[in-house]
């Protein structure tokens, strides 16, 4: 049996987070779906289907992965897994009869034998799944499907606890903390990898859930970590107040107050300032005192821009969604439910607009075209090299595709914003 992770047509509801990665590469809990399936099902062969422009970058990230190969699909019995699904405890329903499982219209997974897949093969995965859907029995199941970015934040709490139970609690970690480290709550809910360092005057509070500290992570003095929480590989917490339901991916530098948020990885939020109910991509830098709101003053539900329209999340607590490579200067203020695209630059001092298109700058109350593609790539190359990561040509091509694809939206919104300014509006 092979597992095949696929993106369905709803990937763009998860923008800006899925501009630069597939839905199954998003972090929720202590890992991404790809990592979860590989770790929880060792030895299982996995293949992937995603948008063409992301294919070379995924190959680089995953090594010799089989990507977008319909030919490969018919070689074995398979379970096709929707990349937006968060299976309970990471368990895949590998055993059982052939079936198509759906949840409110979305295909969650398809379990099929090789012969059935071969009969259903078409010229695209989507058509192949449609063929399987008409051939096999369809069953409606309850499933945690991530449809919008805020769902990742909402599910993070459950996933952190499940990951601890299924994976981290079974791993050998540091047995005893240093004398000046305080553990509040159940010590068995703490996993500190052997290569991690917890400095004196750190409080680890497991009263509300487990804390997982991955290899190479460093928690510096005067930090407080509340579970459930995951601190990623080689990430530093510098005088951080890391509140519950937070996942911080690898190689981040995080200080200040962070609550119920997810940071994909390789991002910095070194200084004082609040980040709550947010999802931050990779290579983001958040300047000192930059703060996001995650609760409106009238305690009403938060609206977020999705595909150009404001959408009611139905949730009272929603922070910001920030695309890869975006940078915030000191003192930026982000309104509740703000969306910032990829590779944006924001200068602070005022409340930012609720939506900033990719590769835009916001400064002096104006939405701007910014430094253009070439200079942005040059700058980001420098950013990545500081963490010993080389920006590959495939990666540059991916960014260029995003730059071109978002150009029309960028120009339209800049024009509209200029018009509003000329008319004296906000």
């Amino acid at each position, binding site marked *: 049996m092979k597992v095949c992770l696929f993106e369905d047509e709803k990937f763009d509801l998860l923008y800006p987070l899925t501009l630069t990665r597939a839905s199954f590469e998003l972090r929720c809990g202590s890992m991404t779906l790809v990592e979860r399936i590989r770790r929880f099902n060792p030895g299982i062969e996995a293949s992937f289907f995603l948008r063409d422009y992301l294919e070379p970058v995924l190959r680089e990230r995953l090594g010799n992965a089989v990507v977008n190969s319909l030919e490969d699909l018919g070689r074995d019995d398979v379970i096709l897994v929707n990349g937006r699904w968060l299976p309970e405890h990471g368990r895949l329903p590998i055993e059982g009869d052939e079936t198509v499982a759906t949840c409110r219209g979305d295909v969650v997974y398809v379990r099929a034998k090789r012969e059935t897949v071969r009969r259903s093969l078409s010229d695209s995965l989507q058509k192949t799944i449609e063929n399987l859907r008409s051939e096999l029995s369809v069953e409606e199941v309850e499933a945690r499907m991530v449809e919008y970015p805020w769902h990742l934040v909402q599910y993070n709490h459950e996933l952190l606890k499940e990951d601890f139970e299924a994976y981290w609690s079974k791993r050998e970690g540091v047995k005893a903390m240093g004398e000046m480290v305080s553990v509040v709550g159940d010590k068995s809910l703490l996993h500190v990898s052997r290569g991690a360092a917890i400095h004196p005057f750190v409080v680890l509070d497991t009263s509300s859930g487990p804390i997982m500290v991955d290899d190479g992570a460093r928690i510096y003095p005067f930090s407080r970590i509340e579970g459930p929480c995951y601190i990623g590989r080689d990430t530093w917490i510098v005088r951080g107040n890391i509140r519950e339901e937070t996942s911080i991916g690898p190689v981040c530098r995080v200080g200040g107050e962070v609550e119920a948020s997810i940071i994909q990885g390789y991002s910095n939020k070194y200084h004082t300032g609040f980040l709550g109910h947010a999802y931050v991509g990779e290579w983001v830098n958040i300047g000192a005192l930059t703060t996001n709101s995650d609760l409106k003053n009238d305690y009403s539900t938060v609206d977020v821009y999705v595909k150009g329209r404001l959408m009611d999340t139905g949730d009272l607590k929603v922070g910001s969604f920030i695309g890869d490579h975006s940078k915030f200067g000191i003192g930026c203020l982000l309104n509740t439910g703000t969306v910032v695209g990829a590779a944006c630059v924001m200068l602070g001092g005022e409340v930012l607009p609720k939506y900033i298109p990719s590769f835009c700058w916001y400064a002096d109350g104006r939405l701007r075209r910014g430094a*253009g593609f070439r200079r942005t790539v040059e700058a980001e190359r420098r950013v990545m090299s500081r963490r010993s990561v080389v920006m590959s040509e495939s990666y540059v091509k991916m960014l260029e595709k995003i730059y071109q694809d978002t150009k029309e939206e960028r120009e339209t919104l800049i024009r509209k914003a200029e018009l509003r300014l000329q008319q004296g509006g906000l």
Partner: protein
Amino acid sequence: MSVEEKVKRIIAEHFRVSVESLKDDTSLVDDLMAESIDTVELIATFEEAFNLEIPEEEAERNQTVGQVVEYIKAKLAQAGRC
């Protein structure tokens, strides 16, 4: 549209002034209050509009609207497109 008209229109739009108000000796810094962020953005806009590569150290030598027009014309000529 001539190169001069196109350059002036980009500058006018960027600083939100009328094209007519821009003279050859209009200073980007003294008259239009250009800051470093404006320079970066204008260079990127000219690069895209004229399909040119403009080194920052060259661009920074242009202090007036007229100098920018002449500079762009020269770069286009260099590229064999003027």
